[in-house]
């Protein structure tokens, strides 16, 4: 056979074989795919411009591919076709009716953005309605729809991978359900994200599976009713009013769900009413008002197994109504629920089995290390017991009083209530959390900033408490050495004791003060002119300090006090600006001398430049940086005088400023005051000491029991106030008896004391006469001491 013949033979064989193969394929085709799947394309540029046009031309089994673009509803899929969006085409129904309706078994809608349903709740206006068996809605995005996906009498329907939200402008009760499923047995709802809708309602449907969904911010995350053989697993139920609530259903399995943040009025994570044969396993129930709620569950002879769940940080871990009996709680972790178990209406949980659970408030121990506590766990908190009986007491949660009650109960078992429940074999370690339950870590940035803000506030306060800056003033400012200028307004002038007319700096007129029934001052009147120094003389309680306080406006008084023209009662602040005040003793804070001066300078609005020369004049320069408490009493009084002189006030008011000073310091202080007197300050000072008065005072005001008894010169005071003295005399031993005799004869009663001295008593003005008399009689006096009596 030639080569050409061989080629023709092969070609002919190939043709026959090909035809045979085609025939075979044609014969086999009905067995593998029927009818032929057509792919119809809908896009803004055609071939089909609308979904409805494509649907009209489609046949069962066709795929209608809708490209990205904005399309209008309503769409009714009444053929077993797949309507598939590519690039998220949108279907908008303009706020009318249901957007997409699947009425033929086997119809599928996927990949669309669906919006604009009607808003009539009684007509179930939805984004998608599945109204036939074996219909599917998957991977769609539904928003601005009343109901999300309505599954009505659609057995074996599938709702998968959709993102559903409702009308954002409506409040919770007005929104539609994310998914509403009625009379649709064996439906599968999985991997959807449903948020900001009302409920997911699943009623009258057996064998439904709800798996892997996320349901957030709704009212009832899932509401089951009359749904036997339901499976709910691996869902994330977050921040709804209620989690999964199941009523009148049998054989319900709920496992491995994370339910967190159900905070509505009931706020159950898992609630069951009249349900039996319930398996609740491996769920993590966190931060809800109640983890599990059982109402007449299990009923009849059914069971409710609650096993290996975590109930953490809920207000109540498990809430039981008193009619719930037969529950089996095993291997669960009760972690820091405010109330681990509540039995509403009070009573004990003994009708249920509690075995081998972990309780975070367990106080027992595990000596053999088998993971089981050696002591039983008992729940017997007083406050919980009270709340179970009087629920409104819950308002006292987080109150320290509640802790106090529990502490009292633990200390005094007599007030401890009967145990609510007993777990004979409590676990000592909680369950290890599954991965899906572990919160993703935050970044902590916000809290870091908050910490920064708060610690900055602390630091600012720290800066504020630094003592006033110790400004080194180099300004040479000497204290005035001449009489000071005095404010003119309202100042009276008067001629006093032959001195030229001077302004009255202090006028006290009928000043009276009562403390209770005691008159401390009674109609005291006097005046002091510029440059004059007045002493207040009187025993303790005479009213000196009260008079000083009255002049400063620190106490209420009757009468009138005018300081440099200012009425103290009406304008005490201005009057005090004219006064430098030195008390008997001052307690300062722990600032340095200089800082203290700066504080009072600011308060008195004095020029800070005065500080340095004042410290110099008071001999405090070398102490300027010392803390005031470290100063001696004398130096503190010098500081008080320096402060008093800040602002250069014309009047100094001194309340026994040298009372606590020793002799040497007193002398130095007197010298300072003498200098100020020479400078022309008007000085009013209280004192007990004659030497101070003689050195400083022009006049003496003698106070007695609040009454100004007399106004004297210092000399007259000496005579008036001298009184009796006790003179102790050191006399040679052989002359002592002679001295005693002579003294007694001379009118000065005398005796020898046990220490070898002679003690005589005499009027103060007779001291010199007595000494001269002893000397005149040849009695030698080697030394003597005088004490005022």
């Amino acid at each position, binding site marked *: 056979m030639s080569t050409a013949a061989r080629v023709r033979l092969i070609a002919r064989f190939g043709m026959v074989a090909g035809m045979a193969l085609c025939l075979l394929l044609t014969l086999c085709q009905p067995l593998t795919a029927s009818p032929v799947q057509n792919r119809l394309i809908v896009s803004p540029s055609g071939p089909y411009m609308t979904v409805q046009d494509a649907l009209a031309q489609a046949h069962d089994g066709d795929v209608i591919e809708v490209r990205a673009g904005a399309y209008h509803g309503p769409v009714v899929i009444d053929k077993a076709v797949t309507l598939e969006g590519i690039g998220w085409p949108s279907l908008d129904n303009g706020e009318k009716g249901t957007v997409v309706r699947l009425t033929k078994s086997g119809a599928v809608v996927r990949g669309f953005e669906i919006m604009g349903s009607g808003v009539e709740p009684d007509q179930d206006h939805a984004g998608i309605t599945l109204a036939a068996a074996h219909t599917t809605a998957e991977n769609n995005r539904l928003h601005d729809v009343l109901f999300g996906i309505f599954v009505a009498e659609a057995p074996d329907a599938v709702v998968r991978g959709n993102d559903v939200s409702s009308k954002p402008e409506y409040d919770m009760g007005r929104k539609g359900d994310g998914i509403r499923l009625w009379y649709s047995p064996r439906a599968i709802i999985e991997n959807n994200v449903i948020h900001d809708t009302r409920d997911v309602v699943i009623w009258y449907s057996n064998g439904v599976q709800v798996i892997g969904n996320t349901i957030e911010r709704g009212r009832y995350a899932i509401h089951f009713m009359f749904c036997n053989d339901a499976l709910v697993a691996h869902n994330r139920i977050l921040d709804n009013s209620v989690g999964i609530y199941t009523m009148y259903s049998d054989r319900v399995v709920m496992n491995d769900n994370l339910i967190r943040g159900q905070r509505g009025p009931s706020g159950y994570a898992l609630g069951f009413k009249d349900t039996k044969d319930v398996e609740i396993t491996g769920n993590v129930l966190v931060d809800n008002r109640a983890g599990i709620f059982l109402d007449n569950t299990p009923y009849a002879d059914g069971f409710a197994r609650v096993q290996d769940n*975590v109930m953490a940080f809920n207000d109540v871990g498990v809430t039981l109504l008193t009619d719930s009996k037969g529950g089996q709680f095993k291997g669960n972790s009760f972690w820091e629920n405010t109330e681990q178990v509540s039995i509403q209406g009070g009573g004990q949980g003994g009708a249920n089995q509690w075995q081998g659970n972990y309780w975070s408030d367990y106080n027992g121990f595990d000596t053999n290390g088998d993971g089981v506590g050696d002591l039983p766990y008992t729940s017997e908190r007083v406050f919980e017991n009270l709340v179970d009986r009087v629920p409104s007491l819950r308002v006292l949660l*987080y109150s*320290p*009083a509640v802790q106090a009650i529990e502490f009292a109960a633990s200390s005094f078992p007599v007030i401890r209530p009967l145990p609510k429940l007993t777990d004979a074999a409590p676990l000592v370690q909680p369950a290890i959390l599954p991965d899906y339950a572990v919160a993703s870590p935050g970044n902590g940035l916000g809290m870091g900033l908050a910490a920064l803000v708060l610690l900055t506030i*602390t630091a600012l306060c720290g800066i504020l408490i630094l003592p006033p800056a110790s400004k080194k003033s180099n300004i040479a400012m000497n204290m005035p050495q001449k009489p000071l200028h005095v404010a003119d307004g309202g100042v009276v002038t008067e001629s006093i004791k032959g001195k030229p007319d001077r302004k009255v700096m202090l006028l006290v007129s009928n000043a009276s003060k009562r403390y209770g029934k005691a008159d401390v001052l009674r109609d005291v009147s006097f005046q002091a002119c510029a440059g004059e120094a007045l002493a207040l003389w009187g025993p303790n309680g005479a009213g000196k300090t009260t008079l000083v306080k009255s002049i400063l406006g*620190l106490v209420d008084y009757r009468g009138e006090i005018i300081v440099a023209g200012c009425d103290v009662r009406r304008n005490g602040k201005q009057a005090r600006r004219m006064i430098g005040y030195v008390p008997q003793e001052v307690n300062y804070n722990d600032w340095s001398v200089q800082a203290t001066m700066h504080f009072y300078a600011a308060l008195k609005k004095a020029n800070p430049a005065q500080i340095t020369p004042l410290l110099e004049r008071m001999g405090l320069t070398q102490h300027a940086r010392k803390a005031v408490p470290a100063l001696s009493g004398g130096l503190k009084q010098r500081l008080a005088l320096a402060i008093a002189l800040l602002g250069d006030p014309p009047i100094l008011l001194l309340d026994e400023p040298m009372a606590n000073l020793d002799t040497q310091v007193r002398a130095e202080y007197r010298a300072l005051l003498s200098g100020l007197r020479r400078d022309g300050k008007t000085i009013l000072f209280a004192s007990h000491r004659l030497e101070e008065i003689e050195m400083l005072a022009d006049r003496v005001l003698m106070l007695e029991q609040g009454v100004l008894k007399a106004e004297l010169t210092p000399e007259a005071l000496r005579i008036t106030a001298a009184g009796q003295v006790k003179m102790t005399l050191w006399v040679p031993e052989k002359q002592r008896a002679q001295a005693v005799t002579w003294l007694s004869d001379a009118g000065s009663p005398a005796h020898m004391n046990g220490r070898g001295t002679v003690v005589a008593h005499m009027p103060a003005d007779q001291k010199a006469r007595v000494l001269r008399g002893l000397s005149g009689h040849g009695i030698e006096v080697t030394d003597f001491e005088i004490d005022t009596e």
Partner: protein
Amino acid sequence: MELKLVWIIARRELRESLRNKWLWLFAIGFAVLALALSQAGLATAGYSGLGGFGRTAASLINVILLFAPLIGLSVGSNVLAADRERGTLLYLMAQPVSKSEIFWGKSLGAAMAVACALALGFGLAALGLASSRDGHADVYLMLVGFTLLLAFASLAIGFVIGARARKGATAMGMALLVWLVLVFGGDLGLLGVTVALRPSPDVLVAGLFANPLQVFKLGAIYGLRATLDTLGVAGQYAMYRFGAALPWVLAGLLVAWSVGGFGLAFAMFNRRGDA
């Protein structure tokens, strides 16, 4: 009243109050507890992320209810009474300043001291939370805000005590007594009344509003949860009655306690015929 003088006295009082050992004792105690609470969850593998911040903040509420009034009352009662006892108040009043300048300066300084101490505690706790990557700054700062209002209300009550007492020790004793009444007495009384009389929610809420500590608690919980449902029917009633205005009502009540307290204290201080 010259504000500059008020500020000068306030700065002095801030320094003096910060030297108050009670303030630091309580402030450090608060800081340690707050920090410990912020870290406590970490000790329990995994669970801290669950309860996390909300739980920490709820625990903080308990600590705050004990410490904030204690800080406010102890500082407030001490400011006037101890100064009066030492004679420093008299010396200050002998200067050219008015009573109102002294009073409000001291009040401001004491308030700054209290704020400083609390800010330190909260700041450390916030650091702890930030280091554990936990917390919501807005919620936390709201808690801080309510705490400051509570502390200021307590401070004002402390000033009322201090305006009356002659000695620091007396004032401190009275402050502790008031603290006991506010923290325990009021709640125990409310508890007893609730058990015995079963008052309606509005009466219960009114009872809560009469105690600044409970007002704080409501505000703090609202800040955490944006609801008071967790407090049962009384909490729900408060939400229903005041709606979105509730946090403002609560903050306003605490402000009223502060204003009323300081106002009363000032009247007593001003009316007092001696220093």
